[in-house]
């Protein structure tokens, strides 16, 4: 019985490509981080694992695809369009806005349909979690069976045909690390969005509201903060970021637009949130980046097919060794 044939320990492969793996891992991690923010904000506010957040992300992917296909008129073809830097960025920006719109409204809808009635009834936290699982089923199956009837060519059991705006190619080499155009787009836009979110939560009046409700809902309400509005806006922020992440993900993995495409990424993003300290915004960002990088190292070390296992084992280990995550949990205490 030879386990060795299934698991390799390719230490050389890891060290030879160390920086390349790190940069690539960062671009994965940026996507995880954006999705993780949605988990972490909602958890910090409601103590709820928003299991259906991965489906919000998935809807965002379809939103991005819809924008490219129906609004901008690109069709799936084998070749890239190569419209030049300015136009490509413009088109991607439009697609991202649309994806954010779709995911953001889906997140608000989810909150309104599923979670708000439960809050009114003071349900137990298990009830919330089961509702979240139920909504996750509903959204997935909606895309699998109902969406193809509404918009032909969308949803169903097969992934969408990829639309390639621009061929990924190396832009510059930096100490032996080839940085491709998609990597640049992913990392830069994720960075901008992360900074914006951080400023919104830590510097604005509205962000203070979120932190207040997370810390002590009753007192926050007495101080004139509308809890319901804060919760809704938090879901909106999570949805918007998931939508943005969805577009970046479709840039990286153009063939991943499928009804079940959000599940694994959602679990990983949640792991990232836990890794950094759930309920903690900067923790989610840090955790996302770390998870992306670690996953890449693990993949180089053990082989491609163990990539997902690395993520899950990491999650279990973090929970066992430091259940509060690297930066500690709690949005309310707002570590700055």
């Amino acid at each position, binding site marked *: 019985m030879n386990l060795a044939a299934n698991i390799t320990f390719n230490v050389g492969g890891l060290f030879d490509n160390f920086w390349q793996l790190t940069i690539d891992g960062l671009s994965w991690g940026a996507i995880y981080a954006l999705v993780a923010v949605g988990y972490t904000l909602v958890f910090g506010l409601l103590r709820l694992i928003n299991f259906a957040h991965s489906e919000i992300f998935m809807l965002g992917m379809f939103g991005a695809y819809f924008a490219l296909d129906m609004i901008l008129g690109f069709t799936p073809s084998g070749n890239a369009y190569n419209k030049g830097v300015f136009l490509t960025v413009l088109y991607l920006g439009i697609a991202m806005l649309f994806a954010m719109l779709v995911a953001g409204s889906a997140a608000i809808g989810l909150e309104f349909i599923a979670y708000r009635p439960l809050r009114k009834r003071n349900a137990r936290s298990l009830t919330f979690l089961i509702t979240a*699982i139920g909504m996750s089923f509903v959204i997935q199956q909606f895309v699998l069976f109902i969406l193809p009837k509404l918009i032909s060519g969308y949803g169903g059991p097969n992934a969408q045909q990829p639309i390639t705006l621009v061929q990924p190619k190396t832009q510059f080499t930096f100490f032996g690390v080839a940085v491709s155009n998609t990597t640049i787009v992913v990392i830069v836009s994720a960075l901008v969005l992360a900074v914006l979110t951080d400023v919104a939560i830590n510097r604005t009046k509205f962000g203070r509201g979120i932190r207040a409700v997370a810390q002590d809902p009753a007192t926050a309400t007495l101080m004139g903060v509308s809890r319901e509005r804060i919760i809704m806006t938090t879901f909106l922020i999570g949805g918007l970021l998931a939508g943005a992440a969805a577009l970046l993900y479709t840039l990286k993995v153009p063939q991943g637009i499928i009804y079940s495409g959000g*599940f694994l990424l959602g679990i990983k993003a949640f*792991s990232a949130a836990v890794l950094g300290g759930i309920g903690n915004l900067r923790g989610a960002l840090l955790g996302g980046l770390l998870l992306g990088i670690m996953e890449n190292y693990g993949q180089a070390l053990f082989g491609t097919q163990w990539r997902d296992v690395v993520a*899950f084992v990491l999650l*279990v280990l973090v929970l066992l060794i430091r259940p509060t995550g690297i930066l500690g949990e709690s949005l309310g205490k707002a570590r700055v």
Partner: protein
Amino acid sequence: MSAIQERLSATWQRLLDWWDRLSRPQKWVFGIILFTAVALSPIFTPSFLDTPGISFGGTMAQFAMIAIIAVGLNVVVGQAGLLDLGYVGFYAVGAYTVALLTSPESPWNKMGPTGFFSAPWAWLSCVPLAMAVTALTGLILGFPTLRLRGDYLAIVTLGFGEIIRLLADNLGDITNGPRGLNEIAFPHLLESQQHPEGVFSASNSRGDANYGTWWFWLGLVLIVGILLLVGNLERSRVGRAWIAVREDEDAAEVMGVNTFRFKLWAFTIGAAIGGLSGALYAGQVQYVAPPTFNIINSMLFLCAVVLGGQGNKLGVILGAFIIVYLPNRLLGVHFLGIDVGNLKYLFFGLALVVLMIFRPQGLFPARQQLLAYRNAARELLMARPSEKEPAQ
């Protein structure tokens, strides 16, 4: 709308109350009548119950397996209050234990002329082994993770379930990877001219008493055994400790309940029952492959428990019946060009959401808080205020 809803729930409540007021012997009599009716249903299938698209015996065999799972998961989720989203992992471990020990494609095959097991009895001797291995898996998983808070436990178990599937998928040299393991052993019982490999063989596929029906009967016997075991546990010190942990872990700890130990017990017992069901599955289908043990099935198991009513072992069996029967019944029924049988996850998802809003305790809720005090206490509390006064 709400008037209808109230009438419905009132009628339902009266039915549940009627059942609660029955004495234990009366419940047993009803139980035995119901059991006989259910056991005979594949032979004398009423036409309104039949599943036109698929063998009714096979459906009932599937029901028996999911019912065992629901009872096992109910110990973990319903009684001890530990949300386990990776229960399918235990199901997989049970199924793969049997498969690895008896499939000719496995490197650890112990069947055949030189093997340890003799072919006719291989499956039966693997069942306790599968349960033991699964229980051990539960212990190994539970020992580090059960100290975690509820929500985290849910995610860790989810990760566990996914890791088990990925292992089955990736360890190609042992598990044969995505191709799966074939020709798994099954009990060679009641061999005859007509059924040369016994009634449990897949070749016995015709008529009402096909192999599905026989597996269903075997499953029913196992269910009764498990129910007796779990029922006794429920009424014992262990069961009371579980309820205490579920209702308020801190309070239980303060009262001297070793919460970690009892949680571990619940996890291990639940895992063993899941393993049993997996062994049953491996024997009936005689083939295991990783996609069967997808996380979405884990959610479906949870759905059975939640639908039936967490903490009520008979309720979750009915929940399992709903989960298995409805999709099979609706298979082949078309609506707007969609096969309704395929929409099971959509409907169950909707059912979960609606149920959580209007009836979070499930269709057949357990009398949770009062369970520990037995019927006498419940009657006292349910009585009208005037009757509650002690006699002067």
